């Protein structure tokens, strides 16, 4: 019998990249459930649509690139990208917008850069940013109202709205709390703004109806991944910390700016903190670098939310920091054992 001749180590921990991705998908389930509870089946339809398109696109590109298709489909990375994108999109986004976003994410943002592991930018966020810039109307008017505020959307209604048209759309959609607050704060006081039903019934302790639970669900999923050591604490902590500090510094007066509580628990904050910013391929990889990278995202989110024209900012903040990640890595090498101090920066030639 021919004996194997390979390099050590001979022991490896069981599991593979597909397993990591499966854990990520598993951890998103609470968030998806909360989203579906408050905003109807729209997201489930979007997820199904996005996964289908993503897998077809992935297979097609792999075929063109002459790579083993089954081997790469099994890493579930396309599925994760598709789900993240679907979660970021409004629930009633027209099907063609979703398709364009997914195709762009998989074909351009991922495979044109060399496939999994080589893409400098988060594919889901690239796809999202593309459609956000290209099709602003459907992207801002397709959020359904929270379940408690409007007639619940049947599966058929949702399907017809996503795939065939938008006649009744106004009956179900509504601005998001972040967007609303931001625009009203110029003319109203905090108390007046909070009278709007999207912030929950008056006199209740809600921060933003539905959104708070969705964000907490994503937080729970994120904590699960942290416990499973899929990623480290650095990015989420510095991301949320920076966002919180910015919100306190600049938004301490709820009558003039969006309060910190709303920043943390509305919009895509938690989804971004645990599932988008932590995408390892495009994030910084050194411990210190991760802290800088996460903090950068948190600051950019606040800057764009507070002074930019887009209602939410996770996608742009993440993409901006993706740019910086390789640079950050170069300057944040840890101190290697036995070295007096860490080497920083590019290779010096002396």
């Amino acid at each position, binding site marked *: 019998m021919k*004996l194997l*001749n*390979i390099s050590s*180590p001979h*022991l490896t*921990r069981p599991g593979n990249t597909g*397993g990591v991705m499966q854990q990520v998908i598993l951890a998103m389930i609470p968030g998806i459930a909360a989203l579906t509870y408050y905003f109807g089946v729209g997201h489930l339809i979007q997820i199904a649509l996005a996964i289908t398109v993503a897998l077809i696109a992935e297979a097609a590109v792999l075929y063109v690139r002459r790579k083993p298709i089954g081997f790469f489909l099994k890493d579930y990375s396309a599925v994760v990208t598709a789900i993240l994108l679907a979660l970021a999109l409004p629930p009633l986004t027209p099907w063609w917008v979703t398709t364009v976003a997914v195709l762009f994410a998989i074909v351009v943002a991922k495979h044109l850069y060399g*496939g999994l592991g080589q893409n400098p930018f988060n594919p889901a966020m690239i796809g999202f940013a593309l459609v956000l810039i290209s099709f602003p109307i459907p992207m801002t008017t397709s959020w359904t109202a929270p379940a408690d505020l409007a007639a619940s959307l049947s599966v058929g209604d949702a399907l017809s709205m996503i795939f065939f048209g938008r006649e009744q759309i106004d009956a179900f959609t509504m601005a998001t709390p972040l967007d609303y607050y931001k625009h009203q704060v110029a003319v109203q006081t905090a108390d007046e703004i909070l009278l709007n039903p999207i912030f929950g019934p008056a006199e209740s302790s809600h921060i933003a109806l539905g959104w708070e639970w969705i964000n907490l669900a994503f937080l729970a999923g994120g904590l699960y991944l942290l416990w499973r050591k899929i990623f480290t604490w650095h990015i989420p902590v510095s991301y949320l910390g920076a966002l919180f500090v910015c919100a306190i510094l600049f938004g301490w007066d709820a009558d003039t700016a969006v309060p910190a509580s709303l920043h943390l628990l509305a919009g895509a904050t938690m989804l971004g903190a645990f599932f988008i910013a932590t995408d390892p391929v495009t994030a910084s990889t050194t411990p210190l670098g991760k802290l800088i990278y996460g903090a950068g995202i948190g600051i950019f989110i606040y800057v764009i939310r507070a002074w930019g024209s887009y209602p939410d900012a996770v996608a742009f903040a993440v993409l901006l920091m993706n740019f910086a990640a390789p640079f950050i890595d170069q300057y944040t090498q*840890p101190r*290697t054992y036995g070295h007096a101090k860490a080497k920083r920066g590019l290779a010096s030639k002396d």
Partner: protein
Amino acid sequence: MSLMHTQIFDFKGGVHPAENKQQSTELPIACAPMPSKLVLPIAQHIGAPAEPTVTLGQQVLKGQVIAEAQGFVSANLHAPTSGTVSAIELRAIPHQSGMSDWCIEITPDGQDQWIEHAGIVDFLDVEPSVLLERIQQSGISGLGGAGFPSHVKLAADPAKIDTLIINAAECEPYITADDVLMRERAAEIIQGIEILLRIVNPKQCLIGIEDNKPEAIEALTKAIQVSRDDTHLIKLAVVPTKYPSGGEKQLINLLTGQEVPVGGIPADIGIVCQNVGTAYAIYHAVAKGEPLISRITTVTGAACAQPRNYEVLLGTPVSELLPLAGVDHNQMNRLIMGGPMMGFTLNNEEVPVVKTTNCLIAASRNELPDPAAEQACIRCGMCVEACPAQLLPQQLYWYAKSDNLEQLETHNLMDCIECGACAFVCPSNIPLVQYYRYGKGELNQARADKQKSDRAKERFEARLARQEREAAEKEAKRKARAEAAAKKQAEKKAAPATATGTSADAAQANAAQPDMALLQKKLDAAKLAIEKSKEKLAAAEAEGSDKVEAFKLAVEKSTQKMKDAAKAIAEAKKAAKAAPAANGASDKGDPNSPERLKNKLELAEARLKAAQDRLAEAEQQGSDKVDALKTAVEKQQERVSEAKAAYEQASSSASNSASTPASRVEPEPVSDLAAFEQKVLAAQTRVDKAQERLAMAQEQNLDTVAALQTGLEKQLAKLAEAKAALEQAQAGAQEVKS
């Protein structure tokens, strides 16, 4: 006072692989039976390979030195049993590459007869240098895996050492050699440590041991309590089980919180680290006088019917060790020497157990499945968390893959200890360590290449400088010669009168053929003048300012020699008178040599006339010295060299014809033969090359074919000529000999 050292630090990174240690600890250590042969590689340690001191077929006794250490960082090698040296040759050695190295094979005679040896009984009272000497003689090198000669580590200045660390962590899965050794032979280990304490004289001694070895900890505790070391220097430091706590650098970090500086050794921070097995071997070497000839090796793995630890003679082939543990070859899919994290696979079971072989794992496919296909790196950073050297494995991976040596260096690849923790945790099944080994190899290669190219550059520049210098010297010589000749000419204005006078006398005395005698004399005089001017050059060069005296001497000498030459010519003439008659008789069969001689004489005459003219001219233009004399001297030189060549030709043709078997001609044919042979060889190569070129031209239908053909014909003719000449010369040489 407690025996436990409680202040344990932590090192960053590390992993927790399944231990799989219990299988091989169920049974006590067994003594492996005497194998049919012992194969001992001469390089079982880090450093210079030992040099064999035995010869093929020599009888050796157990414990006899069979290979001697070369230099300080090297170790002796001893015969593990008595027997015959049956081979000293290249054999497969336990090395990842599967390559061969020099090995000494001993066929045991079954007597197992010891060489005379004695231990040091009161080893705690003798001088440390004596103990160190004994350890060095006993060929002890680190038994933990690296194989660094122990005496080198122990030779550190005791004043600078404050901690002795005994590495008993044995953090790799499967391996239990140190564990069972501590369980069964703790007392000897502690005595070995006492010897080490005597040598190193530290302030404290810590035995670092993982908490998964409670039996060993208990045995050591008992042994320490009964030991002679009543100052309680020795303390047990129980560390949490985490791979790679047994790495020297990691253990030092665990026990002292210090880090070995990059490029340094533990002694730089006052620490000496020795493996627990090494301490045991040191006890045996010092107290019993037994060199390192055996070790404890774990034989384990799922393909073993009964995993167990064996005391194995060094050199025992793996193929004879595996059956003892009942290894099923049908199940065995991977055979690892060392642990599963850092050990290497063997594909040849004939390799021997060496000083560093702590474990053999005969693994089945279920146990250690074939590596899964490598997936894309998603930079998940699990490797960063696992790396005990605080490197960035994922970055190193990218850089190694893309051969970016500069970045590999910047990211401290060389600090990687190849522990395998990164590859262990990698979800993408990337054989990271192999990438790093490749990268390290390339880096080392690049460094070596750089060194070599620097040296090549240096040598090239040195060569250029030398050539320049030589050219300059030549030029200087030429100038000096010209100047000397000029001065000589000026002085000669006076000298020639006497010289011609004497030569004229001589010519008158030799009435026959006065012209020729004169001419020859003058030729000789010119020759001598050249020689003199050379000497003068040398003198002038050497003494610079003292030219005048040197020149005077030279003139005197030259006149003297001219007189001598005149006499010689006269004698030669007498001989010449007789010679033509003899030649005429014997040389008729070979018209070659007389003709040549005639030609030569004619040539010489013409040349001599020319030389005379030149001399006269020079004399006339005495005031104009420099230029005229320069040319004159140069031309004279040419003439002389030509004349010399002509003489040589004449003598060689004379030897060819073998008509004058005079004693002084004898040595020449030999060199002539060689010269002819060379000519033939050269002609042959030229013919070969011409034929090649012709063939090529013909193939490609070039229009140079005709030209090449004539060229080839010419070459062939030359070859034939050369061959003929050679044959002639050979014949001549044979005749001369006979």
